């Protein structure tokens, strides 16, 4: 492997690490298409992408843990519900494959879901009513009702025992958590994707988990899904350490920066960036699917350029917002004499 390629992978890893640490999504979304365009076999692109996601999620989860932003109990419940949901989603996918409609239905559903969640999250953040939760994730700190999205308030109001405490200072029925996890798992299994872009907003909008904790808990779940996925691909020799090692060297730093930024950047801004990332992702996936339909490989490159451009733009905005907030905080709290 040439030095230029190693530098490219480290830089690319840094970019993805920032997004991954900040949003709890975006790993395989970005890496796998890039490796495919670079000429790697599909199974190596997917397997190495999953191994990279696994390593990055370990680092990002550890960093979020340092910031008190991981709810392990919620994460384990989410893993249980999501795993069951994925199995059901896979059955739906197999049925569509049987009747020959899988490709088109999954593509359209994926684009609509990405775009739909992107529009919803951006709209809610711009409107400012989707929850202006601050970064206080103290387990004992109660959130004001107006800070919790309406659907989450409704779900929290169902008093079906056993009730469990969630980081952020509220209780919710265990069955509601499992139901939300199951629903996100069905979508994840049906679309054949990791599902970070579904789970993170689901944790916030449906259960009412503060955004930084939703990101940290989502990453905790990805440690397990990424680990199992990459193990399965590694059994067939589809994980290339020559790709994973330099990508991880970059993403380890990026994940620290991204995770640290969730503690600085305004929560509404996090949602806007997340929504914009998903919208641009939806456009990129749509372009790639159209390229496949029209048998125009050039559209694969256009799709990748849109995704990389979006990643560069959004990670740049994250770093810029973090630096700006750091300066604003410094000027708002003048040094005190001891």
């Amino acid at each position, binding site marked *: 492997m040439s030095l230029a390629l190693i530098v490219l992978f480290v830089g690319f890893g840094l970019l993805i690490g920032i997004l991954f640490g900040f949003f709890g999504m975006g790993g395989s979304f970005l890496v796998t298409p890039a490796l495919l365009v670079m000429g790697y076999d599909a199974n190596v692109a997917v397997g190495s992408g999953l*191994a990279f996601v696994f*390593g990055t999620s370990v680092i990002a989860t550890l960093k979020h843990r340092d910031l008190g932003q991981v709810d392990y109990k919620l994460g384990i419940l989410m893993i249980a519900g999501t795993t069951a949901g994925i199995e059901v989603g896979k059955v739906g996918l197999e049925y569509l494959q049987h009747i020959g409609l899988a490709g088109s239905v999954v593509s359209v559903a994926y684009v609509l879901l990405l775009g739909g969640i992107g529009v919803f999250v951006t709209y809610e953040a711009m409107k400012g009513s989707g929850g202006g939760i601050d970064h206080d994730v103290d387990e004992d700190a109660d959130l004001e009702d107006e800070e919790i999205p309406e659907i989450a308030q409704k779900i929290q109001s169902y008093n079906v025992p056993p009730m469990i405490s969630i980081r952020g200072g509220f209780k919710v029925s265990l069955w509601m958590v499992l139901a939300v996890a199951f629903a996100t798992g069905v979508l994840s299994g049906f679309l054949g994707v990791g599902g970070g872009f579904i789970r993170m907003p689901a944790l916030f909008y449906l259960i009412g988990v503060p955004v930084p904790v939703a990101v940290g808990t989502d990453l905790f779940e990805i440690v397990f899904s990424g680990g199992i996925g990459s*193990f399965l691909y590694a059994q*067939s020799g589809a994980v290339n350490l020559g790709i994973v090692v330099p990508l991880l060297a970059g993403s380890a730093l990026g994940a620290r920066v991204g995770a640290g930024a969730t503690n600085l950047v305004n929560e509404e801004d996090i949602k806007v960036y997340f929504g914009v990332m998903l919208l641009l992702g939806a456009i990129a996936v749509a372009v790639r699917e159209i390229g496949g339909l029209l048998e125009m490989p050039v559209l694969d490159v256009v799709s990748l350029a849109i995704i990389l451009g979006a990643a560069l733009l959004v990670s740049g905005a994250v770093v810029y917002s973090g630096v700006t907030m750091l300066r604003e905080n410094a000027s708002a709290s003048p040094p005190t004499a001891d």
Partner: protein
Amino acid sequence: MIGGGSLTASVDAGMLIGAVLLEAIILYIGYGAAEQLFGEPVVNRIKNN
């Protein structure tokens, strides 16, 4: 019953994923140490610029 070939493949896969995990932990500790050393000066520099 697990065949010898699949067991070897599983052990190899486990070692490979273990290597990725080890790299992740080493990087986390390494960058953490770098953050301890250089984090505050960098943050102060950003605040004062």
